[in-house]
């Protein structure tokens, strides 16, 4: 299909990538919903911009299937590639810890080495992000596409 072979545009909700995406207005505490241009990362997709040329790099913003709910997609930044050691600082919020425990995932303590075939994803807005700091590394084949930029609203290009 087009979205898995060429390009797709998807709407982003949630504050976990603020202020890069969906910035939260500090005065009014509202956030916009950005529409993102996403390039699929499948190597055999015929017309994808990423085919055969692009390998995932640290710092890329990617779209991925959530491990806890396969029908939903998330957008986060790649922090660690397989083999990287992640030094973790800071406490996770109680909300995040409780959510991870309810899902059955979680109990990630201390420094972590990202295993083969998995990546470490984090949201820019670390206070309000439920990410690999809470559930651990994510299989790399769940990553579906790389975010190329914001297409709407036009003021956010």
């Amino acid at each position, binding site marked *: 299909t087009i979205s898995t072979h060429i390009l797709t545009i998807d709407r982003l909700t949630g504050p976990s990538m603020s202020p890069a995406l969906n910035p939260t207005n500090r005065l009014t505490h509202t956030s916009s919903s950005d529409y993102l241009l996403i390039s699929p990362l499948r190597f055999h997709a015929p017309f994808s911009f990423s085919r055969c040329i692009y390998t995932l790099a640290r710092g890329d913003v990617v779209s991925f299937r959530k*491990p806890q709910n*396969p029908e939903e997609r998330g957008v986060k930044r790649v922090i660690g590639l397989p083999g990287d050691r992640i030094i973790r600082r800071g406490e996770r919020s109680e909300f995040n810890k409780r959510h991870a425990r309810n899902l059955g995932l979680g109990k990630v303590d201390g420094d972590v080495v990202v295993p083969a075939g998995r990546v470490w994803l984090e949201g820019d807005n670390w206070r309000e992000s439920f990410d690999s700091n809470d559930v651990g590394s994510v299989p790399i084949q*769940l990553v579906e596409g790389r975010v190329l930029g914001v297409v709407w609203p036009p003021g956010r290009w």
Partner: protein
Amino acid sequence: MPPRLPHLPKASPFRQFLLPRSLKIYTSSALLALAVYHTTPIYPTTGPSMLPFLPVHNGIVLYNPLTKRGRNVRVGDVVVAKSPYQGGGIVKRVVGLPGDVVCVDGDAGRERRYAKVPAGHVWVAGDNVPWSVDSRHYGPLAMGLIIGKVVAVGEDYWWNLRGLEGSDGMVRVEEGDVD
């Protein structure tokens, strides 16, 4: 009879008539072949981890792409999934759904333990347990990696595919096959 025109290379019958039409046929059939290749739900398998369900070499499975991401997956279904630890795919049997408690086989040096399958994941195991790398090694499999449920199994060629209902699904294994 029309007057004979001098021979002009650009207006030759081949270039004028046949070439554009054969180019259209070639490109459209190439695009059609590409579309069929990318959408046909058939997966070739190799390896002994699903014996006797699948042969060691030249196995082939037909899967249902409507069951991607674990929709309607039940315990006992064989699924095709993207590999959780490398590129490529895997074919394994689902033995635990989210929320189930699974007994993880004791292995060489490891104790038997019990694990609860987290939300959005399934526990998979190969039929040929001693020869299978499965959830005992890489943990629960995220359902987002599942490509589809297997509906037919075969060997060598797609016309050898047989549905699963009522078949014993057995494969002949000879000594020296697994290598």
